[in-house]
């Protein structure tokens, strides 16, 4: 059959040409399949670089993975050792002042630290007037423990009583108040508080465990479903305004403040539209409709 077309020599030549062409095609295909994707990744490291594990003394690497630790009970001390200044207290106070207070109140206590651009301005300890609580020992201690609400003065309750008292002395020293004590009753109360037993440090658990705990404690609220046959005006508004029934229910369970009334409801859901499962259409509701919506929600969402 094939002899009618080519002789054996020609056939051999044709076949070898075919092999050459197919070979070239295969090489080109391999080139496209292997080399080109390789080129694309040429500048990427072949494997992610392994980080050599550095194990600290505690045996954990991740700073959030500390071992669970029960809070330590600090034994009560004689209050007078804290009320009376000492060199030891002065050293602690200076150190603590440096890390906790200096950035606002300044190294000399003049309220001119680098971060003093807060409103209201940080207290200038040397200024006699205008103290919220007063510069005497019980009041400074109170300020430190509770902070001053409405200002940038935070509460330093995470410091121990001893540390707080050391800071009190240092602040009084900077302000030039000596160790001015307050009224006798106040001093009495302070001494009583300092002597009170039961001061403990915080319990600690690893962050991952806290995550598990919080996750485990979480209860999914029922989604805010509106039955299809519910034709009440409240259901109608809900249908119009709720875009994500689960989120809406979650928001309303997460904070109970909205129960105070339609205004509180508006304040609690308006700023977070639409992430909280409500539609932007809420912004166009009339006061009467807010009332209807409030009533409808109150009926549907059970208090926790």
């Amino acid at each position, binding site marked *: 059959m094939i002899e009618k077309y080519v002789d054996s020599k020609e056939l051999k030549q044709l076949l070898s040409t075919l092999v050459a062409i197919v070979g070239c095609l295969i*090489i080109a295909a391999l080139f496209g399949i292997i080399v080109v994707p390789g080129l694309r990744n040429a500048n990427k490291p072949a494997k992610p670089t392994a980080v050599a594990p550095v194990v600290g003394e505690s045996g954990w690497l991740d700073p959030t993975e500390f071992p669970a630790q029960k809070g330590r009970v600090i034994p009560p001390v004689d209050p007078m050792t804290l009320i009376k200044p000492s060199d030891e207290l002065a050293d602690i106070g200076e150190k603590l002042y440096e890390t906790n207070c200096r950035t606002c109140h300044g190294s000399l206590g003049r309220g001119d630290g680098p971060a003093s651009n807060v409103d209201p301005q940080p207290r200038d300890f040397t200024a006699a007037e205008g103290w919220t609580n007063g510069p005497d020992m019980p009041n400074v201690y109170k300020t430190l423990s509770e902070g001053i609400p409405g200002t940038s003065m935070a509460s330093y309750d995470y410091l121990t009583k001893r540390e707080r008292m050391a800071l009190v002395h240092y602040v009084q020293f900077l302000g030039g108040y000596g160790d001015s004590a307050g009224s006798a009753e106040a001093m009495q109360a302070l001494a009583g508080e300092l002597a009170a037993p039961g001061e403990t440090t915080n319990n600690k658990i690893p962050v991952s465990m806290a995550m598990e705990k919080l996750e485990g404690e979480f209860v999914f609220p029922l989604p805010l479903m509106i039955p299809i046959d519910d034709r009440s005006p409240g259901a109608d508004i809900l249908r119009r305004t709720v875009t994500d029934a689960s989120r809406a229910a979650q928001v309303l369970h997460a904070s109970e403040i909205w129960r105070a009334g339609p205004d509180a409801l508006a304040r609690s859901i308006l700023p977070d539209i639409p992430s909280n499962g409500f539609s932007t259409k809420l912004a166009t509701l009339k006061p009467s409709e807010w009332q209807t919506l409030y009533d409808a929600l109150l009926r549907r969402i059970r208090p926790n």
Partner: protein
Amino acid sequence: MNNREVFSVLGIFDSAQSLMRAIPEVKSGAAAKLEAYTPYPVHGLDEALGLRKSPIAGMVLVMAVIGSIAALGLEFWTSGVDYPQVTAGKPYFSWEAFVPIMFELTVLFAAFTAGLGMLLLLNRLPFFRHPMLAARSMPLITRDKFALAVEAGGKTIDVEEISALLRDSGAASVEVVESPPVHGLASPRFFFRVLIAIAIACCVAGYATYWAMKLFPKAIPMVHMLDQPRLGPQQGNTFFTDGSGMRMPVEGTVSRISIPYTVDEQEDPSAMGNPLPRTAPVLGRGRQLFNDYCSVCHGILGNGETTLTAAYEAKPTNLLSKNIAALTDGSMYHVIMKGKNSMPSYSADLSQDERWAVLHYVRVLQRALDAKDEDVSSAQKE
């Protein structure tokens, strides 16, 4: 003349008919190989000379199949596997869309097989040193005469006898063609080797590029896409009066998906609840975002202890303190939105959901560092 070999003896005929008539006579008279030279294809000559049929149709079929497979393979690999893109919602491997190019490549392969295969492989052209090209009758042959050649084929032939035979069978004239020395350069085989060499060179160059890129990663031969006349994210630019390349949105621009956050006082939004469920993915996302955005100042544990105190001389808030812990989610949300004291607003950096996720994680940190007693006991039991 004598020291050159005789290549063939040509009988020149005036018409195709006389050529055809002469072939059987010459064929029976001379045992040597016959070849006819004509100005155009004369039908029936192949059968008269006893030539084989042309194998070109089979070659074309084979290459056409290879062409369509190659096209389909190329399209499958590039559009389906290596660089899958969604086009008009069509599947990655959509054969319908691949048919046109398959057809084109089939035709391309087939036509070039027919054309180049005929010229290079079967006819062994280009070949400029063929003895016939030097023959005196060549201009006649390409014009209007027909030649019948009795070829020596390497043996010696009796020129006189063959000339007489040709004349007897009707040749108008006879010419003896000699073999010139053969140069091998411009032969089809040479061309083929050049082609294959080029193909191999391409492959070598390609692989060499590949390894060069691996060894010298900064050597990027084509930088078209990398080199673009545009401003980087924070680059300055004199075009605008403020000297900044980045533009603020037009005054009053609002996001398309949410209503603007117009709350000013921290207490006002305190009523807001966290809309995200406290699930592992949300907490994980919050943790990642906290570590990325917040931990720089507030510390990885949220206790405000970072190197920033020394570097920036700021004392970030300890998020674990009791009066922070007492804040509602909504109040803290407000701080993220508006900033507080030295803390700037993070409303541009975190989306709504991301803010809420971070707040969830802050609660986790507060729990971790101020755990309940039963937490610790359960942890120690494990």
